[in-house]
């Protein structure tokens, strides 16, 4: 019985640790996808500027308020526009960004396919 209690206690402590780590991981993941607007080529996660430090606190606050990753991105997008995101979603402003590589891939594939058919 004692061993069981001890095992359960250990399990409980480890699960708490896991919870803590996962919220920190989430914060890090989100801040890595947010651009530091006052730095050049740095994410909020990488930067130590005043803006980035405040942003890290705000992301944590929003996570504590129960907002999901997507909701936080949307919130930042409303405030600062698409530029704040390193990985912007599909919207009318990003159609070319997302669809052009696919179109080029299909176009190239069609050329190769036609050439192969001709050869055979």
């Amino acid at each position, binding site marked *: 019985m004692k061993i069981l209690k001890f095992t359960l206690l250990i399990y409980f402590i480890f699960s708490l640790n896991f919870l803590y780590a996962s919220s920190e991981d989430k914060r890090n993941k989100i801040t890595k996808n947010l651009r530091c607007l*006052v730095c050049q080529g740095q994410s909020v996660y990488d930067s130590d500027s*005043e*803006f980035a430090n*405040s*942003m890290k606190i*705000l992301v944590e606050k929003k996570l504590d308020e129960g907002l999901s990753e997507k909701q936080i991105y949307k919130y930042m997008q409303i*405030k*600062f*526009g698409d*530029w704040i995101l390193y990985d912007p979603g599909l919207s009318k402003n990003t159609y070319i960004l997302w669809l052009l590589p696919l179109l080029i891939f299909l176009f190239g594939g069609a050329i190769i396919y036609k050439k192969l058919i001709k050869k055979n």
Partner: protein
Amino acid sequence: MKKKLISISLASIFIIIFFVFYKGLKNTNIYTPDVKINYDIPVFSANLFYLNEEVNSANIFKKDKFYLVNIWSSWCVPCRDEHPILMELKKNSNITVIGINYKDNKKNAQNFLNQLGNPYKKIIVDQKGTLSIEWGAFGVPETFVIYNKKIIKKYIGPLNEESLIEIEKII
């Protein structure tokens, strides 16, 4: 005919790519995000600078009234440049000037106001800088014109004579 078509399309693709890069490389690499307006002001509660009591945004901003929210700090040099404009706006009864003191030392901020004058009806303290981000600001100074609890105009950087005329036209 087919070969000609391929070479023409290849040449046009090359020309398009050339112009995209030519224009892109000439652009400045200091990017300013879009000035987003017409969104609701954030809902917040924060401490007041002088009274040291907590205040709700709902108690500060009323409907059908113009407000000017200015984010400032005593360590910010451009804030000194725009201060006379804020003092000028203080005289206008159609607008209420509210200050957000960004990541500042209280003593320095007080000296700043004693030296240059206090244009603000209320000053909200933003010690962590998160409130300013919630307003959509990423530096100091930044100024927002508010009507009906919506941001209708945003100024990034210090206000000048031109912005003063613009604001006076709005209100």
